[in-house]
């Protein structure tokens, strides 16, 4: 295998021999495939909305280098560094989210973006991985110090984040954040009774949304009763998989990308299905499954409580987003705008995912022994 010598004791050398190279490889594959697929799907969208054909491709490429840098830089961190970045990132994201509510432009009916020096970004994307780290830390503190107030603080933070997201509004993101939090709480020993209560509460929240939020009503009705209304994007996407068949119509031969408004973002998976076929889709889904399952299985041997909670939080977030996106594309779930990690177009999302996965790689790095880890951490934090 290429790489630094085993005896290389530099930071890079140690990193190379301790990082989860298969997961790193899988993420690299996803980023590369994402770049190719954005190049395949977005020119048609760009042309339809009357901007330069390669606008989205260029912007995605522009974000790719920083994303790779963030991924690798984050993966160099020690668990302590991860925690610090998480806390700092969370504070920064929270401030930025409050700023979006105050000064963010209204785009598509929501205040989700901040525009600084002409660069538009979405603070809540950064909040997602950072909050997972903070939650993991608080649950760890609760467990170690046997102090329930840390758990209560985690709950209070969740409520604040959900409130900020609801004000934007961004219910999709809120659902992901809540799901990740409860996932971590579940791992942190939330009693099964409470898990049941959480599930019931989630269902209640969903039915409340169904009852009181008109567009949620509409989307769920459309999912349950496809004949009830216009369901253009989902129906078109669904048909794209059928048209593509096992091996697709061929690169560039697809037509859904020219009619689906979100062909380069939420419905990029359908473009893959049409042009490259079912086999390519299964390979992509398998790559996601590989990252998630391998990560979770590695955590099974993880002796550090914080690493376990933080790592699983990041993995759940990653896997949930991928599964929901593919599920919507395949009409297994009601329509919900969610991007396919690393594949869909989107700069903030790409950077945030790179950060999240970088932190995961940092957490899952092999530490020779806990003693050595302690020594390393001690050294790192000195």
């Amino acid at each position, binding site marked *: 295998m290429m790489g630094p010598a085993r005896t290389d004791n530099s930071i890079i050398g140690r990193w190379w021999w301790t990082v989860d190279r298969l997961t790193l490889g899988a993420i690299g594959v996803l980023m590369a495939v994402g770049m190719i697929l954005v190049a395949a799907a977005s020119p048609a969208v760009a042309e339809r909305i009357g901007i330069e054909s390669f606008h989205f491709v260029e912007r995605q490429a522009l974000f790719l280098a920083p994303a790779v840098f963030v991924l690798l830089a984050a993966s160099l961190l020690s668990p302590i560094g991860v925690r610090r970045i998480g806390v700092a990132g969370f504070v920064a994201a929270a401030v930025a989210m409050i700023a979006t509510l105050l000064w963010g432009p209204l785009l598509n009916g929501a205040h989700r973006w901040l525009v600084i020096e002409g660069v538009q970004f979405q603070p809540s994307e950064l909040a997602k991985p950072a909050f997972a780290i903070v939650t993991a830390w608080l649950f760890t503190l609760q467990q*170690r110090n046997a102090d329930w107030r840390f758990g209560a603080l985690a709950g209070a933070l969740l409520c604040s984040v959900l409130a900020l997201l609801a004000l934007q509004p961004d219910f999709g993101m809120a659902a992901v954040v809540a799901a990740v939090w409860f996932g971590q709480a579940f791992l942190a020993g939330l009693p099964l009774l409470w898990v049941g209560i959480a599930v019931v509460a989630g269902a209640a929240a969903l039915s409340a949304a169904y009852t009181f939020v008109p567009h949620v009503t509409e989307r769920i009705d459309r999912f349950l009763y496809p004949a009830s209304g216009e369901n253009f994007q989902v129906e078109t996407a669904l*048909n794209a998989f059928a048209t593509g068949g096992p091996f697709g119509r061929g690169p560039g031969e697809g037509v859904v990308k020219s009619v689906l408004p979100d062909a380069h973002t939420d419905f990029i998976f359908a473009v893959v*299905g049409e042009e490259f076929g079912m086999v390519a889709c299964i390979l992509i*889904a398998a790559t996601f*499954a590989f990252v998630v399952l391998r990560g979770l299985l590695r955590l099974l041997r993880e002796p550090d409580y914080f690493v*376990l909670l933080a790592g699983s939080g990041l993995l759940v977030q990653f896997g949930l987003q991928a599964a929901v996106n593919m599920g919507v594309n395949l009409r297994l779930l009601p329509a919900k705008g969610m991007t396919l990690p690393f594949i869909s177009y989107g700069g903030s999302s790409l950077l945030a995912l790179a950060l999240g996965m970088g932190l995961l790689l940092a957490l899952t790095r092999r530490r020779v022994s806990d003693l050595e*880890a302690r020594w390393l951490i001690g050294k790192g934090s000195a």
Partner: protein
Amino acid sequence: MNAPTFMARHDADPTRSPPDGRVRVSASSKSELRSGNDALAMAHRRVIAVAALFALCFSVIGGRLVDLAASKPEASTRTADYWPAVVRARADITDRNGVVLATDLSVASLFAEPRLVQDPARSAAALAAALPNLPVAELRSKLESGRTFVWLKRHLTPKEQAEVNRLGLPGIGFQQEQRRMYPVGALTAHVVGFSDVDNKGIAGVEQFFDNALRAFPQSGLGAPLKLSLDTRVQYTVREELLRAMVDFNAKGAAGLVMDAHTGELIALVSVPDFDPNRVGEAPADARFNRATLGVFEPGSTMKVMTVAMALDYGTARLDERFDATKPLRISRFTIHDDHAKNRWLTVPEVFVYSSNIGAARMAMEVGGERQRGFLAKLGMLERPPIELPEAGAPLVPEVWRDINTMTIAFGHGIAMSPLQYAAGFAAVVNGGFKVAPTLLAGGRPGAKERVVSQDTSDIMRRLLRLNVEEGTGKQADSLGYLVGGKTGTAEKTVAGGYKKNALVSSFAAAFPMNDPRYVVFVMLDEPTGTASTQGFATGGWTAAPIVSRIVGRAGPMLGVVPVDDKSTEVRRALFVALDGRRSPSAAF
């Protein structure tokens, strides 16, 4: 800073956790919070649950992918649905034998996206060189307009498209469009009509059946609209009319061949005509359909109806005589005969010598009310039910006085289109059943409606044949086809009276007369006499010879078997003497 925790974990005794591995937890009591190892063990177990959940999710996604890839796509994923055509396709129109009269052709139209054009001046010059019909200045102003989209030229020829494509100019593109093409050109122009640049039918059958033709499914499986026309017969009629138009220096001409029983129009021609592929270049007169839209006074051909009416109501017998010794005066009008015999005439004589006086007297015996009813039964008093928007309504007197009865008896004071006259004529000769003219192959469904008795129809066949054998219609005969018919010559009406020397000359015929299958009608608009017609421009000299040639040429195409004109059966079937006898004397 976490060191104590790490140490604690290593020092922890595994036996301190409950032996069954279960963890007793109550979040309400902090004293019962789990120890580090218990918590870690539980987290590990629960990670397995989370992993299993994800494995399930991804398996379902994989299964769904296989399921969808194996399913049949809906038809609506075809590219055509995503790129709605600028113009909609129309169904083909064919003649009765499937010859295509109108079809859609996919052609390229040239457009520009001026915002993407890099050098408007140079691009305009290059385009103008490739498309010489387009002025440079106009092209340049379009390319410099800064608009998002602008048409440069619709419907390019393949050669033009290749030329422009070869230039490789940015911001210039082709849009495939459906263009309506009429392969037979002017031949069926007045029947088929045409459609505009957006493929909307705006004349003829194209307009009449516009909705049905547009309902044509995108799949291309739409059945063509099959007309009753026979392109071969249509060609014959048109050629003969064009020749006559030139020979007699006429302003125009109309002609038709109609199935005498079903009313199907085998040919329907009006000249001058136009190329429907280039409608814009056609003068208004060429676009005027003289066969169905124009109405004219039929003149003597109307005597067919008058005689049939008198015989049918029984007010006249075949051998009855009418006083034609002198012109007939009624109020301030005087009715003359063109070929005056100045004696009493039998019914066959009135017909064959085309006596206006005799016809007028005959009609007066029937009476105005019954005359009006008779013509209404033949369908001559209202707009004919033809599948064309260009169908002229007849001009009929509002108050039907005696003078009207008399003039209508010989075809004046009433006006109708050649098509309408021919339908009434068909009813008289086909055995007595009303005919509704149609352009659709197969004719109209519906029960036969008798309007004239079989016997009357039989006598009329004999009289019409007699007129061709011995009367004014001699030049209409065509050997073996037993043509029978009647001439008509009318002066054209102008404001306040008749225009001398501006005639509408016509000939109404059917063949074979012993059992008529086809009606042929020819009308010339303002023919002038020539040396070969001894200066005459009347129907017998101008229209009748055209009928003869049409029958001679179209008869074989239509599968009519020629017979021996002189054979005993034919003579027995068609004989009528001028004195009214219906069987040949012993001399034969």
